[in-house]
């Protein structure tokens, strides 16, 4: 069921215009590029890796007809987040542990990926910094040399080098932001939740405990420094963030508020869009063309159009999802949107790019205690 909806604030509109003017007028920052059969051939989805908190990573081979077939179940300690190396030769895994090798810390793992079968083989396991328990999210730097970890338990960020053989080296830095930790009225601890590399030596991190986005840099000694933080949501609100692949933009949404924010690399708000449905967002995905944004809300999936001037316009909502969504990801070829629900299932929807519409969801797999998904392309 598609429903029209659109509302965005006057303040956001003004901000948007001001920001766009500031970066060089109202010229389009990207041209609409529709996915084609060619792009499908160029980036065929080959494998999907799904992590389960029950201690396994499931490898699915994706056939040409789009069907998924489970081909391997690799034991892992407590996989909570997955990240592929840029060359897709290695899969990195965060283990949400309270204790690793008897120490009060979580761990990360490196797996080599067989390019023909997608099967995983362990390369190494590495401890996080002491007190860095329950890692929640990992990200690999664009050059594939660094692994950054958002750690919920120790409320910290860890940095580890990735070595030539794909193995993970020992922690080089652990940073625990405490500045202005608590608002007296609503005490909330920091809960680092996700990381986005901006460059090889800088990343942004969302903090769902405080509703912050924190900016960190990496120096030549592989130490971490705090650059600052920006308030984006209510304290205690989950923040979801995606990077626009075609422009220097981030899209940010909170779990308690139905506003989607488009921000610059410097985290200045360019536009805020208030969705009319749902009380907040639980996941975001952006289309590889940069022209569509998908937001999972309590009411389903909202489809947001990004026009040629980079302005967000909510265009439709889609309420046929069976269960609350906690992961969304768009395929690289732009043809499919994948969703994973709390009810432990993975679904695929076809994207009708021209109509800003989604097909009915097709159930692909059912994984108990689903925690993370990663896609491997040919």
């Amino acid at each position, binding site marked *: 069921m598609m429903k029209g909806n659109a509302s965005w604030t006057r303040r956001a509109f003004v901000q948007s215009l001001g920001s766009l003017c500031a970066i060089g007028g109202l010229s389009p920052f990207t041209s609409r590029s529709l996915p084609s059969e060619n792009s499908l051939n160029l980036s065929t989805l080959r494998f999907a890796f799904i992590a389960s908190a029950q201690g396994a990573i499931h490898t699915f081979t994706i056939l040409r007809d789009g069907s998924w077939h489970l081909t391997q179940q690799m034991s892992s300690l407590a996989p909570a987040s997955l990240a592929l190396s840029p060359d897709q030769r290695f899969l990195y895994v965060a283990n949400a542990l*309270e204790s690793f090798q*008897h*120490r*009060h810390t979580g761990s990360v793992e490196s797996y080599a990926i067989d390019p023909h079968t997608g099967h995983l083989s362990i390369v190494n396991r590495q401890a996080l*910094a*002491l*007190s860095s*328990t329950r890692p929640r999210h990992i990200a690999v730097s664009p050059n594939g040399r660094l692994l950054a970890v958002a750690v919920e*338990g*120790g*409320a*910290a960020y860890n940095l580890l*080098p990735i070595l030539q053989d794909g193995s993970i*080296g*020992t*922690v*080089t*830095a*652990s*940073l*625990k*932001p*405490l*500045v*202005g*930790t*608590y608002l007296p009225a609503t*005490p909330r*601890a920091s809960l680092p939740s996700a990381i986005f590399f901006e460059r090889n030596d800088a990343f942004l991190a969302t903090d769902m405990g405080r509703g912050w986005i924190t900016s960190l840099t990496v120096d030549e*000694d*592989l*130490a*971490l*420094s*705090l650059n600052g933080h920006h308030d984006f949501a209510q304290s205690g609100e989950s923040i979801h963030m995606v990077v626009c692949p075609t422009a220097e933009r981030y899209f940010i949404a909170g779990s308690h508020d139905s506003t989607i924010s488009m921000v610059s690399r410097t985290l200045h708000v360019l536009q805020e869009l208030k969705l009319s449905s749902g009380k907040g967002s639980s996941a975001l995905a952006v289309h590889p063309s940069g022209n569509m944004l998908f937001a999972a809300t309590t009411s389903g999936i909202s489809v947001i159009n990004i026009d040629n001037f980079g302005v967000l316009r909510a265009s439709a909502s889609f309420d046929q999802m069976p269960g609350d969504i906690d992961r969304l990801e768009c395929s690289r070829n732009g043809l499919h949107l994948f969703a994973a629900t709390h009810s432990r299932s993975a679904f695929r929807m076809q994207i009708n790019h021209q109509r800003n519409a989604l097909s009915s969801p097709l159930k692909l797999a059912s994984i108990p205690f689903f925690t993370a998904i990663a896609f491997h392309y040919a």
Partner: protein
Amino acid sequence: MSTTVNRRDPRFAIARRGRNLRFPSTEADAAGRVEYCENVEDAAQTLQKVIDAGLRPTVRSSGHCYEDFVVNNPNGAILDLSLLNRVSAGLAGSAPYHVEPGAMLGDIYQEFYKRSNVVLPAGTCFTVCAGGHVSGGGYGILARLHGITVDWVSSVDILTVDINGKVIQRTVDRNHEPELFRALRGGQGSNFGLITGFTFNELPPAPQELAQAGISFDWATMTPEKFVTIVTTFGLYWEQNDQKQETWGLFGFMGLANKASGRFGISATFTGKDGTAEDLSVVKDFLDRFQRCKPIAEAPPMSSAHQLANRKPMVGDSVCYGEHVITTSPWITNASEGGENGISRGVRAKYKSAYMKKAFTEDEALAFYRMLTDDRSRGLVVAVDSYGGATNNADRAHDTAIPQRSSVMKLQYQMYWQDKAEDASRLKGIRDTYTAAYSTAVADQTHLGTPYPNEHYDGCYMNYPDVDMVEHNYWPELYYGKGDLYPLLQRVKKTYDPHNIFHHSMSIRTTT
């Protein structure tokens, strides 16, 4: 402000490490900077700066930490307090007595001796500083006579980090934040904050004299039977005399070294309740018990267990049956030895510990014999110190964080080596010996391989930390007992370090 030594500073190679050269474990584990603080304000400002930068602070007084607690701190900040080292007393040397964390024990002995003619009953290594030593318990050759160091602490000055990330200066005593005060008397400052001072409202008078004697035994002529006799005799003495106050001035040390060392020895130091060493009957009685084992008389030993490993056999040893070579010297002279090197070259080392409530059994002694005659334990010394006496005041288990109040001996396993290539074999040697020692019939059969508290053992000493013990999920019981202490420490940790800023591989865990 503090003096910062970062990775570009030529002093960094020395500043980043402690005395145990095993740490930092890797280059990546090294801290990013060392901050030398000269006063309390320095320390508070620097700690706040470090917290604001999101870095992990670890705190160092002298760098004697046996494990990786301080220098394994990847790109974090070590706050070095060795310059925060004042020792002071009240008017005309009267109480209260105050010690800053960077004060070396040898300096504390001298300064209190000169100013006030009092002594802080503490350790035997001159260069160990107060910060870690006192907050972790502290004991030495006066322990049987005067108790352990924390028994004398009246208040502690500490910087903690509150829930807002703000550094707070506190002075805690039995009336002000008493749970934190108790925790800091044996529970180690490294769990809760940065200690900037200890105050003692009362201290015992400094001894005038110290008598010393030593005997040793040749491994070449050693038999299992003779070894068992020596070891069990040593232990039995302390078990039988634990409550005999006339013996409390006696401190005994048995250094069980691997066979390759050639010999192992026993030493005794004595100062009477009156501070003199005029009546040596207690010492002679102790030494007489080993005569049937035909010991070799030793030169007066160094009282520091740390120095034993480097001890060489005397040239021209005199075999002395029926007589003991006992020398007497001014106590302060002895207490001042070993202060020649504040910044040590360091050595690779591994340590373990155990408290014993009873004498060694024959099986235990044989376990030691087997392991010490095995090449695996080459370089190992099992230093067995006398304990008990005044330390076994059961009431102090309730107002300090040292629950071991019924032990008669305290063991320190020490393995030293220089070459990193030997790490694995050396660690295996000390681990195997330790496991063998606590796998006899007197060990708790459900906790084999450890001195789990029971009728015979009373766990381990936190100032001799051993990260191997965290392999056992019951490790807090080894160090803090089975009573209400660890829950109290967890409560204090949650209250005073809500962000777990001060943590290390054996710190108080508030989550399972």
